[in-house]
C-alpha cells in the first residue's frame, strides 16, 4: 500500500496504437497507483496531449498510427517539454535505440513488457 501511495502523484500519458495493449498498460499503471491522463494512438495526438496535460512521463510506443513514429513525435515534444519518456518497442534493433537515445529518453523497454522493470523505473522518477 505504501508503494502505491508513493507513486500516486505520477501522471502518465500512454501512446500506443494497439488499443488492447493500451488498455492493459493503463490498467497496470492504475493498479500501481499512477494516474493515466490520456491514452492516444498517434504522434500528433501525443504532441497535443503533452502540451495540454504536461504529464510526468510518457509511455511511448514506437510504431504508431499515421506517418509519424513515436521517436519523431518525441523529437517535436522536446522542442517545448522535458517530459520523461519510456519507449516501448517490439523491436530492439540498435538503429532504433540510437534514434531513441537522441531524444533524451528515460528508458527503452521491449515488448512484451516486463512490468516489474517498468514499476522500478516509475518508482525512480
Amino acid at each position, binding site marked *: 500500500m505504501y508503494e502505491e501511495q508513493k507513486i500516486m502523484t505520477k501522471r502518465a500519458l500512454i501512446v500506443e496504437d*494497439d488499443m*488492447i*495493449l493500451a488498455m*492493459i*498498460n493503463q*490498467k*497496470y499503471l492504475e*493498479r500501481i497507483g499512477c494516474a493515466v491522463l490520456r491514452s492516444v494512438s498517434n504522434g500528433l495526438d501525443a504532441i497535443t496531449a503533452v502540451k495540454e496535460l504536461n504529464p510526468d512521463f510518457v509511455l511511448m510506443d514506437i*510504431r504508431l498510427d499515421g506517418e509519424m513514429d513515436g521517436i519523431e513525435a518525441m523529437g517535436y515534444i522536446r522542442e517545448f517539454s522535458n517530459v520523461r519518456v519510456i519507449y516501448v518497442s*517490439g*523491436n*530492439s*534493433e540498435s538503429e532504433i535505440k540510437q534514434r531513441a537515445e537522441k531524444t533524451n529518453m528515460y528508458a527503452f523497454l*521491449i*515488448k*512484451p*513488457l*516486463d*512490468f*516489474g*522493470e517498468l514499476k522500478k523505473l516509475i518508482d525512480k522518477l
Partner: protein
Amino acid sequence: MSSETGNIHLQSEQARLRAINLFCWVTAACATPYLFFLRMTEDTRSILVMCGIIALFILSPILNQKGLKTISRTLIVFDTNFAVLYFSSVLGYNSGIHLYLFTSPLIVYLLFDFKQKARIILALSSYLLTFIIVYLQSRYSIFPARPMSEDFTHLLYGINFCFTLFLSFVLIIYFANNNAAYNHILQERNEFLTVHQSALMTQIADRITAEGKLRESLAEKNILLSEIHHRVKNNLAVVSGLLELQSMNTEDEKVREIFAESRNRIKSLAHIHESLYQNENLALIRLDKYLQRILPDISNSYAGLAGAVKLEMDMEPIELGISEAIPCGLLMNEIISNAYKHVFRHKPNGILSVELKREKDEIYLMLKDNGPGFPEEKNKRTDTLGLTLIDAFVRQLKGRLSMTNESGAVFRIWFPVKK
C-alpha cells in the same frame, strides 16, 4: 553454318587442301601435252624430266592425304620453280616458259595462309630468283638452248601463254567463287546474328523487367513477413499483459509464480519472432544471440536473484529455422527457469553453464547448473510440467535428451539440423 563455311572458305585448312589438290591435278593435266611436243624434239632427257615433274604434281595430293602438308607445299614450290628453270634453259627464253611465273602470286596465295608471312616471302623470293636466273641464263647463254625452228618456238610461246592465262583464269575463278560463297555465308550469318541479337535484347529487357518485379515482390513479402512477426509479438504482449494483470489479483505467491512461468514462456516465443524480423533472412534465427536475450528476462522474473547467477557460455554462432527455433527456444526457457526455480533461488552463488555447438549433422546443447542435481527417484523426474514440456520439445525436434547429475543437473540435447 560454320561447317558450311569450313567447306568453302580458303581460310579453312580442309578447303585449302582440296584446292591445292585440284591445282596439282590441273597442272599435271596441263603438263601432259608437253610430252608430245618434247617427243617431237626427241629429247629423251627432257621427256623424263617432264615425267618427273608430272609425277611430283601427282605426289603432292598423296602427301596431303598422308598429312605431310608442309612437304607437299614445298614440293609444289620446288616443282614449279624447277619446271620453269629447266625448260626455259632447254627450250629457250623465247619459248615463254617463264610466263608461268606470273601465276606464282596466285599459287602462293593458294598454298599459304596470310599469317604464314615467312613462308610466303620465301616462296615468292624463290620465284623471283628463278626469273632472275632464267633471264641471266638467256642473256649470257650460260647453257645454250636446244636449237628450234622459229615456227616451233612461236607455237610453243603461244601454247605457254594460253596455258598461263588458263591457269591464272582457273585460279582466279576459283578464288572468286570461294569469296562469293564465303561472303554469302557471312551475310547469312550476319542476318542470323542480327535476328538473334534482337531476340536476345528483347529477352534481356524482359528479364530486367521481371527481375525488377521480383525484387519489388520480394521486398513487399519481406515487409509483410516483418509486419506479421510484429503483429504476433504484439499479440503475445497482449496475452502476457493480461496474465500480469490477472496475477495481480491474487496474493498467493504460488499462483503468481505460475503466472510468471507462463509469461516467461510467452516472452520466449515473442523473442523468437523479434529475432526473426530483425534478421536479414526472415526465416532464420541465431540461437546463441537468442539465448543471450532470454537469460536476463528469466533472471528478472525471479526477482532478487538477478546478478547472483554466474553465466558460463560457450556457444558457436548457429542459425536455426523457425520450426526448430520455437521448440528449441521454449526448451531452453524451461531448463533455465527450472534452474532458477529449484536451484538459484536457494543458492547464493549459482553457476549456469551453457554449451552450444554443431556436431556433424546435429546440434549439441548442454545446460548445467551447480545445484543438488535431479532427485534419485525416477518418477519424480517427469511429474512436473516443466520436465514434461522439455520432453515434448525434444521429441518435436526429433532429438535425444540426456539428464544426468554431474555436480549439478546436466541436460544434454542433440537434435538434427534440417537442410
